[in-house]
Structures are given as C-alpha cells and as structure tokens.
C-alpha cells in the first residue's frame, strides 16, 4: 500500500523536471511587478490555470502558509509549491528561479544606471516616486487598519506596538514579534474567561 503510493507519487513527480520548475518560476519572477500579493494573481494563472500543477485549494493553503512566514511572499510561495512538486530540491529550484531575475535586473540597473542618479531630472523623478511611496505606506496602513482595528483587543495591541516604536524606540522587528506574543496571550486570556464563565453561572 505504502510502496504503491510512493511509486504513484514518483510517477507524477517525474513529469515535472527541476529545469521546468526553475524556468517557470524564473518567468514568474521576471513578469511580476509590485511584489507580494500582485504576484499571487500571476502565480495562480501560471500554476493553477495554465499548467494545472496544483489545485486552487492547495494554492490558497500555500498562500496562507507563505504569509505566516516572514520575508517575500513570492519566494515563500515558490518554495512551498516547488516542494509540493519535487520535494526539497524542487523547492530550491523554484526559490532560485523566482529570485534570480530580479537579482540580475537590479545588478544591471546598478551597474549602468547608478551614475545617472545625480542627474537633476532623474533626482526630481525619484523624489516624486518616494513621495508616492510615502502615500503608499499610509495606504497600506489604512487597508490593514480597516481590517484589524475592529475590536478592543487589536486596538490595544496596536497602541502597545506604537508605544514600543515611538516611546521606547525598540527595533521594528522586536515590535512586530512582541505584538504577536501579546496577541497570543490576550487571545488565551479571553478563551480562559469564556471557559470559566459557565462554571461561575452554575455556582
């Protein structure tokens, strides 16, 4: 039974080569602009719709795992999907594939375009872009805020995070992780109270 399962798994695995995995993710890395969630739509198109390598359900499940882990969502997705297709080596092929195009493109820009950064027109252009990015960060805060600031617990965590950052000036990574721990304990507290409540009523 188990032997049968492994052989059937191997057969499906054999259909997709490491080179195929690498090349697919290389193209995805080349095509996607704006990172993270913008990339998800293209990933889904390539893997679920066009190639049928994984199902929609698996895709969604891997998407949520990818966001649970720090770092670039696209790289995490590539790793998880590559792993599903061909194990750990498939995972590395996919991760390398998705990272390599941006690495090469950035190096080319860095080698040939950096001198032009001193040009006043280019500088004005980049200044405008950086102001838009300020607006974009605020926008991301707005989207997240609308989604998460809907209960007292989250508002409390958010304020605690802001105090850590503004007053105690802790490292941002520390503030994010502390919020995770705080959220965890507040949730447990709430669960305990909920569990204790019926007993008190009975007495």
């Amino acid at each position, binding site marked *: 039974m188990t032997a049968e399962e492994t052989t059937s798994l191997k057969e499906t695995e054999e259909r997709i080569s490491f080179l195929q995995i690498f090349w697919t993710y290389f193209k995805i*890395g080349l095509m996607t*602009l704006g*990172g993270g969630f913008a990339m998800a739509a293209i990933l889904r198109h390539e893997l679920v719709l066009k190639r049928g390598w994984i199902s929609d359900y698996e895709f969604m*499940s891997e998407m*949520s*795992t990818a*966001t*649970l*882990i*720090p*770092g*670039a*969502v*696209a790289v*995490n997705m590539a790793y998880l999907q590559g*792993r599903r297709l061909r194990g750990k080596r498939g*995972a590395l092929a996919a*991760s390398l594939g*998705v*990272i390599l195009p*941006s690495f090469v493109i*950035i*190096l080319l*820009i*860095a080698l040939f375009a*950096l001198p032009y950064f001193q040009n006043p027109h280019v500088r*004005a252009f*980049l*200044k*405008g*872009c950086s102001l*838009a*990015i*300020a*607006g*974009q*960060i*605020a*926008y991301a*805060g*707005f*989207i*997240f*805020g609308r989604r998460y600031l809907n209960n007292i617990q*989250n508002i409390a*965590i*958010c304020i*605690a*995070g802001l105090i*850590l*950052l*503004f007053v105690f000036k802790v*490292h*941002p990574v520390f*503030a*994010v*992780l502390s919020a*995770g721990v705080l*959220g965890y304990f507040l*949730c447990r507290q709430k669960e305990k109270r909920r569990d204790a409540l019926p007993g008190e009523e009975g007495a």
Partner: protein
Amino acid sequence: MRLLLQLFKSFMIIGIGAYGGGLVTIPLIQHEVVGTRGWLLFDEMASLLAIAQMTPGPIAVNAATFVGFRIAGLAGAAVATFGVVLPALSILFFGASLIDRVKTNRHGAMFREGLQVGVLSLLFYATWAYGSVAVGSLSQFFMAAGAFFTLVLLEGKIHPILVVLACGLLGVFLF
C-alpha cells in the same frame, strides 16, 4: 569582510521582520541601513527603494540587492540578497510540515492575528518615520497626500505602481 558580515546580519534581521513583505521592509531597511548603520542617506535609500519597486520581482529581494550593491558592490548585493531570504527559507526548510500544522492550529492563529496587528503598528510608524523625512515642503506634502487619496479612492482599480510613476513624472516638472 567585516562590512559584508554586518550587511548580512542587517538584512537577515530585515528578513525576519518582513511579515507580508513589500512595503513592510521599507521601515526595516530605513531603521537598519539609514538609522543604525548610517550606510546610506535617507534620500539615497528612498531612490533605491523607488527603483526596487518599479522593477520586476519581490520588493524585499530587489531592495536588498540594490542597497547591498550600493554599500559593498557585487559581493554586497549577493550577501544582502542571501541574508534577506535566508530566515524564510530556513524556516521553510526545517519546518514546512510543522507550519502546515501550526497554521490550522488555534495557537498559530492567535499568534498570527497579533503579528498582523504588529505589522499595522509598524505601518503607522513607517508613515511617520518615512513620511516625515521624505516630505520636505508643503507641495511635497500635497503630493504624498494626493497619492494616498488616489490609492484609497481608486482602490483595486489602479495599480499602485502607476501612482508612483505619475508622481515621478509630476516631480520632474515640479521639483
């Protein structure tokens, strides 16, 4: 060599904190590269990040490559890129099956909810930390605010990168 090690360490820290990737890496890079280490001036960093956002690929990876190159050349680019993806890849390498379990587990869900709110705090903080340095005049403030309201009002109808490009072109005429 020492610089490369420092660079690796800094970008590994950035890789650990970048939940949700992309924009969240900006305050982390600002803190490490401009604040703690003083490797780049804010304007240099902001320019590199703007380019990083306009080129294909994950923003965190692009930014690491670019900032690493600017600080320590080709070796710097390689080291920073490797550093920024290493935390995620090692977590996945050693614990992917564990994470599959934690994800559906309520303890994981509780931790994650708090984490997302932590990212929210970070975004609020970054709006100030990044915005207060980037904005140097009233007209620049209006431009940043304009970008914000455009994104909010046209949510989902416009790709954010178009807003960035539009502000860049406006900048050429205004600044």
